[in-house]
């Protein structure tokens, strides 16, 4: 499956291979180096930027770097060509000459600079220096890769629980609804009990934990229905899917709850560790723990055994019912966590969240090589599966595939990926 993921990555890299113009501080560094190489002796520089998003950072950084290296900044223009013209006139008026004009990709193309010799013969022969462009796939830009990881974090985390359940030979259709329920509960608790917009950190943590635990309670309920009353998991969790979604709408009164403190977005949008989004860090930690559980711990072995052959497992002393309860409660708790992350990403809780997510989550698990018959599967397989889906979606966004077409393609690719995996297993 990793192979499929790499192939997809390679494909989208090739398709999105384009000219990249650096902006912001990166661009500033490039230009500064170039100027300082060409003019060793205190060059006289004019900086010209326009009103693009990366430009303030560019001009600030550039000015700082050049001054530090001993250059003289004769002007720092921010605006339109006429502002640059005024600045040039002022420099000429002061009887100064210029060595270089530092521009962004955009300002470097202004007509004004193409015939400087005729309009400002007194200015000397300054060189217009722009950040050098290079070719690199849009897909492989670090911003885009982090974006993919952040987009899939919720699905990937919920898929951990789904993997537990599917390995025992069951299925959990309720996770999508539980995401909504948890998001709504967390948002409501923060609004009503933790102080809303002025909520404290402790208050928000308690609200989220409460929301996740309440989802866990629905997991207990599903588990009991499945173990005590032997109702097929498909039916139990289908019912819970409806119940959960309905409850979310009732609790939120059909609306979105957004009276939440700004700091609530830390979990979903923050990036405090090595520039990695916090949700992604959490996802990686959870996958690591789940992997340990499945490969090193008794409980993990029991999960595989129950899915591999329930009767043989029971006759070998495996507490089958307790193992099944563990799987369904785990799945519900992780769905609850997914809901909290989603509420944090969107800074609100709405009953519409998580719609159809159960299917994406199941797809991630299956694409990751876990057998729906139970007894087989790997946690990191599921992570690969989740990323495969995310990469396909992201790649299609980058290549401007229409959203309806995206669904068709995604469905077919999931089928193809599973087929490929199956063939590989057979050989």
């Amino acid at each position, binding site marked *: 499956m990793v192979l499929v993921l790499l192939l997809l990555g390679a494909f989208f890299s090739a398709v999105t291979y384009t000219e990249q113009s650096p902006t912001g501080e990166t661009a500033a560094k490039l230009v500064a180096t170039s100027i300082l190489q060409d003019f060793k002796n205190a060059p006289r520089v004019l900086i010209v930027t326009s009103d693009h998003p990366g430009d303030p950072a560019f001009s600030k950084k550039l000015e700082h770097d050049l001054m530090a290296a001993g250059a003289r900044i004769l002007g720092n223009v921010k605006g339109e060509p006429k502002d640059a013209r005024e600045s040039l006139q002022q420099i000429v008026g002061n009887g100064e000459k210029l060595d270089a004009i530092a521009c962004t990709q955009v300002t470097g193309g202004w007509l004004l600079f193409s015939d400087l010799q005729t309009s400002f013969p007194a200015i000397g022969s300054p060189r217009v220096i722009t950040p050098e462009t290079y070719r690199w796939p849009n897909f492989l830009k670090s911003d885009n890769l982090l974006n993919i990881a952040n987009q899939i974090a919720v699905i990937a985390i919920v898929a951990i629980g789904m993997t537990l359940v599917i390995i025992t030979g069951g299925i959990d259709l309720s996770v999508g609804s539980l995401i909504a329920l948890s998001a709504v509960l967390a948002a409501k608790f923060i609004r009503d009990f933790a102080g809303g917009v002025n909520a404290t950190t402790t208050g928000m943590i308690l609200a989220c934990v409460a929301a996740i635990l309440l989802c866990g309670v629905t997991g207990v309920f599903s588990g009991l229905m499945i173990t005590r009353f032997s109702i097929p998991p498909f039916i139990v969790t289908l019912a819970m899917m409806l119940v959960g979604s309905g409850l979310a709408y009732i609790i939120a009164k059909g609306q979105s709850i957004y009276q939440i403190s700004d700091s609530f977005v830390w979990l979903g949008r923050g990036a405090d560790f090595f520039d990695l989004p916090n949700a992604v860090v959490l996802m990686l930690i959870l996958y690591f723990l789940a992997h340990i559980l499945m490969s*090193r711990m008794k409980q993990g072995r029991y999960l595989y055994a129950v899915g591999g052959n329930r009767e043989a497992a029971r006759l070998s002393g495996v507490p089958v019912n307790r193992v099944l309860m563990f799987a369904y409660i785990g799945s519900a708790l992780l769905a609850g966590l997914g809901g909290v992350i989603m509420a944090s990403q969107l800074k609100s809780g709405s009953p519409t969240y998580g719609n159809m997510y159960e299917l994406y989550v199941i797809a991630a698990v299956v694409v990751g090589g876990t057998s729906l018959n139970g007894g087989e599967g790997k946690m990191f397989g599921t992570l690969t599966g989740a990323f495969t889906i995310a990469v396909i979606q992201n790649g299609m966004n980058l290549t401007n595939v229409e959203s309806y077409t995206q669904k068709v393609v995604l469905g077919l690719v999931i089928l193809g990926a599973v087929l490929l995996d199956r063939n590989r297993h057979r050989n």
Partner: protein
Amino acid sequence: MIEPPPLLEMREIRKSFPGVQALRGVSLTLKAGEVLALLGENGAGKSTLMKVLGGSVEADQGEILIQGCKVPFNSLKDSRNAGVAVIYQEFNLVPALTAVENLFLGHETTRVGFLSHAQERQSAGKLFKRMGVEIDIDVPCRNLSTAQQQLVEIAKALVLQARIIVMDEPSASLTSYEVGRLFEIIRELRSQGIGIIYISHRLSEIAAIADRVTVLRDGANVGDRPIDQITRNQMIEMMVGRDLKDEFPKRNCAIGPTRLEAIGLSRGRAVQNVSFSVRRGEILALTGLVGAGRTETARLIFAADVREEGRIVLDGKELENSSPQEAISSGIGLLTEDRKLQGLILKHSVRENFSLPNLTWLSDKGFINQRQEQKKLDHYIEVLKIKVAHREQISNHLSGGNQQKVVLAKWLARNCEVLIFDEPTRGIDVGAKYEIYLLMNELAAAGKALIMISSEFPEVLGMADRILVMHEGRVTGEIQDAREATQEQIMQLAVA
């Protein structure tokens, strides 16, 4: 006069699987109206050879001749067209369909595209009459007994007008009475000129039914003789390639005080007021015909099923015993009759299967001590001479004997005080059987209490110290000294 060519001739069949040369040039002939016994240890190549004949496995080399003509055998269809029907141990019947529907499955009698039930029922009735059996042809097959299902399989072969019928371990789950019936039918088929290949590990049956014996060992022919020119011991020697002095090893160990006592166990009609005890160092045989309630009794002791009444006492202490988990932790182990469905998780590795009941003591704070796990497994692989390529081999790829050894290993490692062996040697070749018997003796000598459920009376007589006979859920008799008992004596009690 020139002798007509044989009905079937397989010449120099070779087949290799990754890592294994399953058949090294096996030849076999079968005349019309002959019962040929195909003998060999598990893994000797019998199954592969029959799969080649059945068209489900393609041979690498060699040819198959039907009445002297070379015929391709590349698919199930080729095999069917050549008049071959293979009846596997696991029947090929659809449980929800009736006997008639199963008989004509895939080649229904139709009239203008509609099924003609009346016609099918009529021919089915005729067929069963010809076979001399009475089966309710309108009952779903899952409600038929194993013996009846087998008869439906045979009838299916006849519907297909098979001239060559292969029966793989047909008597494995039949009672001796039913085996007798089966033999009558086989003789009837033989008189109609049908050639039958009969695969079985039960040598006494082979002596009773076969005309000729072909023995395979390690994928090659090692003998082919008419039945009247070979003795039972010679057959065993050919199969295992060594001289087996005795099928049942002797045991000499002191029998101690009572370990396990079952008092008044009851569950529905299957088990009714069953009481018995097993002592230290003793092998107690629980025997009777299939359906006598022996397995059900064992399941009550192991708490695999809930007992309605009765008490279980181990070493003087009464056990609550409400789940297999509890039974295991109090020191009771059950080696189930059905290895594939209940004993092993077939898609999991040898290591995972071995560890399952042992994880409680192999792990600390929930973490498995993997080094110890591997060490223990390696130890038992060596002691039990389990033939595995490596620890991670998938259990499904092992032969029956090795699968049983893995099951044994997992219970030995658990160090159970009371071990229940339910048909421990079913479907296992002679060599592996002997090893399992030896092991049972060692366990008894170590002071364990053993309960052995077996339908094979020679095995019961050869292995047990004491025999308990059951019939329709009740204990009908106890034979205190198994050494003095006879098969007739057991049979008397079993049919009581």
